[in-house]
């Protein structure tokens, strides 16, 4: 490298730095506003912060308190019910619709946008629509009564034990079309020659899907699972708009729990610890996924 230092001209050296300079504002923003803030919240979760952040270290006190709260247990039980049903039903509906739509359907161009449009709406709008649609007083129940089905009852949204399922219904309504689109893309990517070969081998349609197509959709299943589980854990707006966490605490989720403990009940330390637990749950799902995605395309 004898000549290098003498010969490298200014422009070349500048060109080596510009890319990094251009990237640095974004990077700095992410480091401060994401990772810095995560550390800050993590720190708060070990302090006795109430209405305002305080810096008195209390160790795992907040976490102990958190796991002792019946309110928190309600929230995570609800999350478990909600996430499981949401993921399973969305995947089932999405896969079914995708397979059916893939049968050279006339009017596919009309149906696809209809299935997908809820994804363009805000959860607040979705919540508002379903809130009144499921309201026994003016909604579906009332309509059925007026149509002559007197015994029809559908008051889940007012029922402590059933309200969480209304959240599932609205959430599935919003996202299942998107899952359908993901599976449809997967189906359209399958090489038709494989299907033709299997048909020549005498496979029935049922076996064709069960033995060949669905196994080939593995990547789409994985993506759907990752996206849906992360949406489930982050669900906040929908609950606020649909039930406000009620009746009582019947539809509290960790996201609403965190918000109310931090900002309404002024127990910031406990709120922070619940946020940390949410982050860890999502990180456990996302990190391996992102790692695999980034490693495959070097």
């Amino acid at each position, binding site marked *: 490298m004898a000549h290098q230092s003498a010969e490298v001209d200014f422009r070349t050296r500048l060109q080596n730095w510009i890319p990094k300079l251009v990237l640095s504002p974004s990077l700095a923003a992410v480091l401060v506003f994401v990772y810095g803030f995560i550390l800050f919240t993590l720190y708060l979760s070990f302090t006795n912060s109430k209405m305002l952040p305080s810096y008195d270290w209390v160790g795992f006190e907040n976490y102990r308190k958190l796991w002792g709260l019946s309110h928190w247990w309600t929230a995570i039980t609800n999350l478990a019910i909600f996430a499981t049903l949401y993921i399973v039903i969305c995947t089932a509906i999405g896969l079914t619709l995708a397979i059916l739509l893939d049968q050279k359907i006339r009017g596919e161009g009309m149906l696809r946008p209809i299935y997908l*449009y809820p994804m363009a709406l*805000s959860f607040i709008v979705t919540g508002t629509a379903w809130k009144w649609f499921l309201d026994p007083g003016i909604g579906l129940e009332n309509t059925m009564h007026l149509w002559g089905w007197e015994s029809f009852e559908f008051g889940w949204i007012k029922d402590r034990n059933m309200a969480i399922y209304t959240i599932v219904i609205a959430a599935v309504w919003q996202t299942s079309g*998107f899952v359908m689109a993901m599976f449809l893309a997967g189906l*359209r990517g399958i090489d038709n020659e494989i299907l033709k070969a299997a048909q020549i081998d005498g496979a029935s349609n049922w076996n064709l899907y069960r033995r060949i197509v669905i196994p080939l959709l593995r990547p789409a299943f994985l993506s*759907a699972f990752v996206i849906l589980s992360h949406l489930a854990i982050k669900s906040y707006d929908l609950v606020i708009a649909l039930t406000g966490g009620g009746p009582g605490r019947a539809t509290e989720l960790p996201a609403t729990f965190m918000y109310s403990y931090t900002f309404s009940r002024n127990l910031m330390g406990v709120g*922070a610890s619940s946020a940390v637990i949410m982050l860890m749950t999502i990180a456990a799902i996302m990190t391996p996924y992102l790692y695999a995605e980034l490693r495959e395309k*070097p």
Partner: protein
Amino acid sequence: MSAATQETAIRTGRIARTFIYVVLLVFALFYLLPFFVMLVNSVKPLSEITEGNMMALPKELTFAPWASAWSTAQIGVEPTGLRPYFLNSLFMVVPAVLICTALGALNGYVLTKWRFRGDTLLFGLMLFSCFIPFQIVLIPMARMLGIMGLAGSTAGLVLVHVVYGIGFSTLYFRNYYSAFPTELVRAAMIDGAGFFQIFWRIMVPVSGPITVVCVIWLFTNIWNDFLFGASFASGSKAPMTVALNNLVQSSTGVKEYNVHFAGAILAALPTLLVYIVAGRYFVRGLMAGSVKG
């Protein structure tokens, strides 16, 4: 990626096909019904809703609920209607989308065409930031906005949305540019073009489709956001979603369902419009954010 690339080779019989059509139509009804209910009831007088059938078409067509939702309904304490909040959202979403897209394009360009040691790790850090539960940043963000003097302002919301949107816009452009031949950049270097000249003259002119995808995605996400709006900009600076929620949840007075429905449609209108006009790009954006590249 999203649109039909090839038709399936699978064949189905007549009875099966009839069944398929029935199922597909039932689902279409399921997706359309709530919106149909909103639309129909937003043009009925209140009495017709409370006494009548939610599914029935209006006997008396009225646009008063729309007018009320837009300009006179009680939001919080002020009878301003949703109009000022609609404008708040607009002033928030436009700059946020522009800044975020521009940064995403530059980042994607650097991360694919000017690679350096550790760049994938940096990108991974940015990408992970899209998926964090935002609860984890609410407390420090509120303080930070306070310190910066941006608490409760539209500018503050713009900052928040830019910061948490960069990951996705970078992802879009990075994936798009990585399919763009590096030889072109090398040819331009030999031709004497510098970093920004290559970006402007070579990369930007071919970035049309991905820019549309990115803009639509950001627009939809930021317009529909509730959490940040509710946390950092309540009161007169609140965005549309927060105002709609206030309108619907307000416990005082009679519940004007028709006004709520009109308001909900107003809040949904911009994103729905985008969806109708550029649905193809919308779907592509959704997919790019989830399925492989």
